[in-house]
């Protein structure tokens, strides 16, 4: 990547990478937080939604020759429908039977295992029947991306998508009747039902949006890094770290948490490899775990639980 000669200030490549990663994990953390605030269960199948989006983009590109940017709405739809399926088929019947939270968690883990099987079968099918020989470990999307000022399109697309999505979620949540109904449902579902909010519609819509966001984060991820059938479980810890840092209650907290986790993974690993030694690089997945541990030790409620005004005043004194 030769950036300096195109008029853009020469940024070190890892800064660009940090921005892309941060935006992607912010999208995934928003998606995870959306499912958590509605059903109050950490969804361990979130990685499956990311993988679903990624394979939709990949299959349409390698079989039908459709550019993944054009098939982005379809990826969103696939992720969203799978998420609705998880909610309606697995989580809602279980919680109606009064299943404890541990049962719901293990059920989402079971869903994730089922999808590991489904993506395994699908990638085998692409490989053996459709003769797509890189179905098990592909970088096709990285090469299908457009290029602008010497950098890949996803460098612009991912942060712009994050900004647009955050803005539209903000507008929906504060300016529309549906958003107000949704916030009421999250705060107190019983009270919301009493005043006439159809909480089921709210839940299903939240899961649909969450699934869609995870899926497009998956497409963007494979523009940058390529993909494989079990990519979801690798990304899962980072998603959780971003959401926990954001407090697991607030969508804006998740945006900040995801940005911090994603970008710190890249920055710390790159600088660590430069100043400590190249052996640091494989331990990148330890950074989200570290973020998780530090957050739970220092600010268990996440950054949104902090009273920033008081902190600033204390700083001035």
């Amino acid at each position, binding site marked *: 990547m030769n950036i300096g000669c195109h008029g853009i200030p020469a940024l070190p490549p890892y800064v660009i990478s940090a921005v892309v990663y941060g935006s992607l994990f912010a999208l995934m953390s928003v998606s995870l937080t959306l499912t958590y605030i509605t059903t109050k269960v950490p969804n361990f199948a979130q990685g499956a939604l990311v993988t679903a989006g990624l394979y939709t983009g990949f299959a349409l590109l390698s079989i039908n020759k459709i550019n993944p940017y054009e098939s982005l709405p379809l990826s969103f739809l696939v992720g969203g429908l799978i998420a609705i399926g998880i909610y309606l088929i697995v989580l809602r019947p279980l919680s109606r039977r009064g299943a404890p939270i541990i049962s719901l968690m293990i059920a989402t883990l*079971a869903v994730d295992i089922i999808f590991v099987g489904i993506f395994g079968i699908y990638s085998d099918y692409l490989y053996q029947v459709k003769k797509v020989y890189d179905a098990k470990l592909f970088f096709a999307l990285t090469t299908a991306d457009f290029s602008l000022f010497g950098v890949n399109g996803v460098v612009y697309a991912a942060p712009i998508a994050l900004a647009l999505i955050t803005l539209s979620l903000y507008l929906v949540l504060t300016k529309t009747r549906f958003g107000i109904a949704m916030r009421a449902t999250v705060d107190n579902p019983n009270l919301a039902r009493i005043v006439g909010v159809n909480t089921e519609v709210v839940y299903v819509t939240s899961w649909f949006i969450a699934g869609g966001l995870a899926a497009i984060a998956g497409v963007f991820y494979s523009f940058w890094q390529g993909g494989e059938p079990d990519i979801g479980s690798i990304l899962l810890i980072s998603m959780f770290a971003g959401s926990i840092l954001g407090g697991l209650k607030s969508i804006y907290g998740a945006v900040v948490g995801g940005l911090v986790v994603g970008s710190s993974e890249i920055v710390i690993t790159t600088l660590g490899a430069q100043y400590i030694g190249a052996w640091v690089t494989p331990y990148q997945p330890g950074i989200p775990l570290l973020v998780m541990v530090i957050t739970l030790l220092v600010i268990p409620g996440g950054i949104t639980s902090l009273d920033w005004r008081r902190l600033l005043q204390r700083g001035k004194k």
Partner: protein
Amino acid sequence: MLPPLAILGIVNWNAFLTSLLAFFALYLIITISLNLEMGYAGIPNFGKVLYFMGGAAFSGSVAIRAAAWIMHARGDPVGLDNFIIAANLTTMLQSDIPASVLLIAITMAIGGLIGGILGYISIFPAIRLREDYLAMLLLGGAAFFQIFLANYSPIINGSLGIGIPNFFAWAGSYSTLAATLLIAGFALAVYVYAERLVRSPLGRTLRAMRDNEAASEALGKDTVTIRRNILIIASVITGVAGALYTIYSGDTNPAIYDRVTWTFWPWLMVILGGVASNSGVAIGTFVFIFLLEYIDATKYYLQNILPFDVTWLEYLLFGTLLIVVLMVRPQGILKEKPSATLSKSEVSGIMGRLRGKKDEKPGTVGQEDAPAQ
């Protein structure tokens, strides 16, 4: 010549039954310890693979080093020559039964020790965090530990893994059977221990703590200490299971320790059999292992027809099975039974003894009457 007769699709019944026993016993150790944590003490341990992986990898690493030291073998036992050294050590140990037994004991002890250390570390989140945060942290911790093993070569040569000598080489062609019997013996001991533990006053305290923590604290039970002890005991047991698996399989490799095989499957067995019921868990483990082994032994019939790896069907089948069990029979095959009480004859026997003592020394009766816990 006729092809070997395949009864019910299985060609080699001896190998099938040995493998069935080995994996049933191995998983029974893990599920009984998971049931102690999850069923009785109320700690949802989503990082079960962590203790197993730690026990298996570190015990393998120490086992081959110890064997090389005892047998004066040259070279780096966990380096590039590992498989040659392991093979040479197997030949040397063939005629040295005492050294083999000593090495088995060392391997199991190291497995338990590492399991215990990892269990001790997990106490800190386990007694502080809510179950959903704990699950995320343990799941993440286990994944990172696997990455650590795959990249830090001094332990098991990174992602290449190491082979360890066969400590049952002296048993000749029965070496697999001998290793299987060792696992089965340990599993039996763990089962008896767990069954005695849950019938003891401590077992009743555990259930009280799980069902109503505030009430049991009000009755003077130290829930933090009890929960800590159970977590450490269960982790030591799982660590030993890891060591036994390393002895059985003869090698250790970070890729073996995935969360599906060593966290999810044990959870499925416990939920299938019945949470907080040791006999139920044993049944659940057997049913699951039988299905898994039977599919593994017969899947090559399907493999030629299907355009994908049959293993994926196991994921679909067992994932669906867990959700169905949670929906249709959340209590599992065997329900949790109320605490076992003494039979009427035993109670009257004790009463009779007490009455007898009362006549002799009235002063000591107060101590005898005090509840044990």
